């Protein structure tokens, strides 16, 4: 549709090559490449100050890159397709004196939706999300979370083909975070491309088909979440009744052993390249006494550590230690 396609064969909603942005000599974004397939939920993962928001702003045309090339929904000037894009900025902003329904309609009007239709859809959306009672309240009369929900609905009122959320989960309680996750999945099912930035890995892990890991303005990894995870071999966790025997020769050399009081042991080692079946056969034939065996695939956090480095991972953990689901 737009010329270029992703590795999976889907046309690209966003294509960016070598984006560079400098502020007063400081390079905030340093050669970012992105390929976001249409209909995907795409996460941009990185600690604060990594360049996520600057990248999104360049993609949306709020600022122009110093160098590089971008194409959004087939257009090189993002404002040319602004009516098909929804955007929720990191720092939320609504006119405090506006009614909720008018705020939604106004954001729609900015995207070319007639005001009357915007009001109608605004009421509809507010009803759908349990905020119908607040439709005629001024924004200043709403709680921060409710105001944020109103702004999210304003982002969607004109039925965009591409929705860009910048840190959408910050400021929302757990229930509303869950609602937003469901909403994002629903959008993707309807064919809308969703791209969001976050420093909470669990959200990206649960929602995203593809992620871009960004650290210090660079993107060391961009692609499917599974590929990121596969950067780290799966770990095998084995519990045996016997602590030793000829079967041990089947185990890889780089393992870790935790002894048990009853003579048995826990074994931790990377999944052999030959797969689990030959190992399993050797353990059974050697009468190791398998009590439990599990293969643990690496999480996105581990992948992040491996890709972006310990320092970036530590910065990520320091921002939201309680929110990282591991």
């Amino acid at each position, binding site marked *: 549709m737009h010329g270029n396609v992703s590795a999976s064969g889907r046309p690209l909603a966003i294509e960016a090559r070598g984006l560079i942005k400098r502020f007063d000599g400081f390079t905030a974004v340093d050669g970012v490449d992105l390929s976001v397939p249409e209909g995907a939920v795409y996460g941009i993962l990185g600690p604060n100050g990594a360049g996520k928001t600057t990248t999104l702003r360049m993609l949306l045309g709020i600022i122009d890159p110093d160098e590089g090339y971008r194409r959004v929904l087939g257009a090189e000037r993002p404002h040319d397709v602004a009516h098909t894009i929804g955007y929720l900025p990191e720092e939320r*902003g609504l006119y405090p004196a506006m009614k909720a329904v008018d705020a939604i309609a106004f954001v729609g009007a*900015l995207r070319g939706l007639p005001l009357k239709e915007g009001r109608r859809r605004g009421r509809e959306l507010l009803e759908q999300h349990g905020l119908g009672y607040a439709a005629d309240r001024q924004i200043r009369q709403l709680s921060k979370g409710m105001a944020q929900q109103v702004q999210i609905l304003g982002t969607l009122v004109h039925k965009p083909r591409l929705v860009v959320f910048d840190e959408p989960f910050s400021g929302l309680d757990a229930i509303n975070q869950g609602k937003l996750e469901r909403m994002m999945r629903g959008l993707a099912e309807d064919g809308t491309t969703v791209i969001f930035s976050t420093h909470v890995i669990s959200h990206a892990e649960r929602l995203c088909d593809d992620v871009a890991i960004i650290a210090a303005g660079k993107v060391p990894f961009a692609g499917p979440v599974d590929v990121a995870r596969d950067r780290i071999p799966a770990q095998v966790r084995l519990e045996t009744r016997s602590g030793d025997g000829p079967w041990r020769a089947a185990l890889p050399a780089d393992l870790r052993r935790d002894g048990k009081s009853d003579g048995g042991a826990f074994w931790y080692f990377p999944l052999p390249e030959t797969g689990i079946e030959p190992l399993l056969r050797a353990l059974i034939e050697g009468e190791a006494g398998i009590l439990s065996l599990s293969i643990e695939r690496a999480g996105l956090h581990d992948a992040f550590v491996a890709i972006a480095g310990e320092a970036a991972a530590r910065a990520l953990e320091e921002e939201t230690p309680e929110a990282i689901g591991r």
Partner: protein
Amino acid sequence: MTEARQSGRLSVFAAAWVIARRDFVAILFSRTFFFFLLGPLFPVIVVGLAGSVGQRVDQTAAQPEVGVVMEGADADAMVRARDALAERLGSGLPGFLVVKRLEPGETYDPADAFAGRRANIAAVLSGTPSDPVLTGPSNQIHAWSGAVAMVAAQARDGELQPWPDVTFQATATSNASQRAGRLKTAQGAQMLLFLLTMMLAGMVLSNLVEEKGNKIIEVLAAAVPMESVFYGKLFAMLAVSLVGISVWGCVGALIYFGAGSAFPDFPTPAVGWPLLFGLGVIYFAMAYLLLGAVFLSIGSMAATVREVQTLSMPVTMMQLMVFFLATFAMTQPHGGDLLGHVPVQLAIRDAGARGPGSGALASCRGVRLAGAVRRLAGARRLGPVPQARDEIGSGAYEKEGRAWPRKDPFRRRHAKGRDGRVTFWVPLSNCIGRDRSEIGSAGPVSKPEEGPIEMKESPDGRYGKPPEDPRLDRRGRSAAGAVRLRQRRCSGKNLSGPLQQGGMATAPDVRAVPDPARSRHGTPLFLASQ
């Protein structure tokens, strides 16, 4: 997402309309607009209070007087002459206070009269009625030189000559009073424009800064080009102000019709009230768009309110300067044309184009738009246009190269009629003390008409012939080039006495002598003597 999408790409102006509509409604139904409506009351109250206080101060402040240091008989003669003239001339003459009666042959340094500070003496008159010497600060002695000379002449001549009775024929107005009234109307209109423009530009700026603070600007910037945001905000405030002006107009009309004859009769402006209002609205719109665009540009560059204040101060100062220039231009109907064409918009356009971001660019476009409409509106001024030039004569004209020298001392203009005759115009001020042949012979006029210049009444009264002084050149400049004496202007009222007695030539001339002892900032003071 089953419903069909109904949104479409907005053009720059459609997006500006969305922004403007929201801003217009939001401002119109806010407290800000209420205070905006009350805005004109504040200057009225302030001006009223200031005028009242100023009048009270003038009433209570002691009037400066002329100290007289002369021989007893001369001093008495001077005081008598002053009092006699004062009865006829009113308060135009300064008070005379005898500081010291000198004995025959006694000398006295006039500067000593200031040392005692016994009274509010601003200058000291010494010498004799035939040879008066006025000592004091240069501005004061020059201001009083005519009056003192007139009193001295009267003291010298003795008994006051009877003046002819003046038969009064009252008219509703005169050219002079009409012009003065029109000037006041123009000043009022200019002040209103200035205040309104300043207030609105400030409101636009604070509106933008508030949105930057609220982070709404990012929602706008992501959806529409920044040009649209600026256009929308600029024109929304313009629309708000037009609503405000309409409200004021309606209230004014109600008061006017309600008060009936009790309403004060304002002088009709030169172009008439309807055109004044029309031009006023157009000029206001242009001025506001120009200044608002600059302020928006400042707002786009500033991150904090403090930065806004810092950045906007030079612009505010510049606007004050423009205000003063406009005030000056109002009194200089022809010289003011040049001021009307100062290409402010070019300078701002350059500044805008080099500023960061598209905000400055948008502002620059706003400025260009404002400049274009302003040019369309023309360079006509609000209010009266006093006649500063007058026809002094006509004659056969032979062209010799250029019509006039490049630096024509008389600043002449000419026009050739169909009959081949040429009419000349010369600024009235350049005609003083000269006759037609003198002016004509300085240029390529071969057959100037002979005879003295018949000067018409100027807007500010009559012009007197300046004193003859061999040390001054024809432009009133001294040989040393350091001192330039202004041509003295007297009102008809003050001149009536001397003219009756034979004109200005009978009054003693004033001679300037520096008095270093009373000099301020190194400016030489002058003693007047013969």
